[in-house]
């Protein structure tokens, strides 16, 4: 495949960036999107140009670091996959592909396609944990009976990889899907009960402090989330917060 790529280039956080056009040829349809980016970077290096900076680590949909807004959607046109799992067979020979970083005031661009997602870390630090003793004498988690439905829902919520596609997709840059998944995975389990109220209040407070927008239930996040995190979690977090506050 021969492709035209329009990619956001930005030297550093403070620089003003712009969309630049590149051509790549002989791209195999079996390549992943990141492999196609590797080919482009090789080409740029050979030409003595600065390669394009982008985040990646596991390249198998687990770490959540690959983050590209591809052809108008986070993680591209496929559903239920991250950018690293997106295959070039989703595109056609001669296509023009637009690639941008996540756009949100809370995710400032560091360089090219790399954004600073430490806002998510601060939200987790504010309450996304359970205080259990892990000194070696902790109880086996399986010793506590948990209804199957709760276990399943908690597990589903826990599959969130913190990629930030929900924020990128949302017209309000709201982080509600991410935060609600993190609140839910603990609120549903007995181990999470002790800090339940404090957790939701602190995490939502931190989310607001970071400057994410307000959820207006467009549902874009759920559609674009590579892990299929459900809006059920947002409704649950709304209930959690209300009951914690009153």
């Amino acid at each position: 495949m021969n492709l035209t790529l329009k990619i956001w280039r930005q030297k550093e956080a403070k620089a003003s960036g712009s969309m630049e056009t590149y051509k790549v040829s002989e791209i195999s349809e079996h390549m992943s999107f990141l492999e196609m980016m590797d080919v482009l970077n090789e080409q740029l290096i050979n030409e003595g140009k600065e390669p394009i900076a982008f985040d990646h680590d596991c390249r198998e949909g687990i770490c959540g670091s690959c983050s590209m807004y591809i052809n108008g959607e986070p993680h591209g046109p496929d559903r239920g996959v991250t950018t690293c799992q997106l295959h070039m067979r989703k595109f056609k020979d001669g296509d023009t592909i637009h690639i941008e970083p996540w756009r949100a005031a809370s995710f400032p661009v560091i360089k090219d396609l790399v954004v600073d997602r430490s806002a998510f870390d601060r939200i987790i630090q504010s309450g996304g944990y359970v205080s259990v003793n892990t000194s070696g004498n902790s109880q086996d988690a399986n010793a506590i009976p948990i209804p199957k439905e709760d276990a399943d829902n908690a597990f589903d919520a826990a599959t969130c990889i913190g990629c930030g596609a929900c924020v990128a997709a949302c017209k309000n840059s709201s982080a509600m899907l991410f935060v609600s998944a993190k609140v839910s995975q603990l609120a549903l389990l007995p181990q999470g009960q002790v800090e339940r109220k404090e957790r939701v209040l602190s995490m939502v407070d931190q989310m607001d402090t970071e400057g994410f927008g307000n959820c207006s239930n467009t549902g874009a996040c759920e559609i674009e989330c590579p892990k299929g995190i459900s809006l059920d979690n947002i409704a649950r977090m709304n209930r959690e917060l209300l009951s914690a506050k009153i």
Partner: protein
Amino acid sequence: MAINKGFLNFSILRKFAMALSGLFLVIFLLQHLTINLTSVFSSDAFNSLSHFMGTNPLVQFLLQPILAFGVFFHLSMGLVLEIKNRNARPIKYAYSKPEENSSWMSRNMIITGVMIMLFLGLHFYDFWFPELKLKFIDGIWNNETRYFIELQHKFHDPIRVALYVLSFVFLSLHLMHGFQSAFQSIGFRNKSYTPFIKKLSSIYAIVVPFGFVCIAIYHFLAQ
């Protein structure tokens, strides 16, 4: 500590208040439509119902101020949230396909909302302000037969009727998203009720504005 923060300082609780005021307005619309509908069948029934609503102290001095506050709150909070949301993404995408993941109605609540706000300006100018003047400045409280004539008089003008019809299209679009979205905001979502609420929302969003449109057109044609 987050626990000590005021109610409306939490984004989620602002949305919660937004949803409650919206649902309150949804109920009000139903009541408004019911009274308007009587104007099609009997001018006497319409007059006596309007007179009751216009003079009953409970309606006038308790429900009316609550309604006015509900409208004002829903509008102003909607604007505040819109500004905050815009600030959350100062740099827009160069290329974006929002239609791939969300409905036009859900993304444009501010547009439909502002159009409804403009309509309310006209509607208040037509009915509410003259009503206030008549009662509170001129002191006329006991004219029981004026309501139907006032209504007919307003819907004489084709431009006004067209503006009303257009406004109800915006109202319908606003309700299509807003009605069911309010339930999500208050956390009311589960596998058995949510599909029903979504259907009810669509039916309400079509039937209620359409009802108002029919009444306006009826009075225009009946003259």
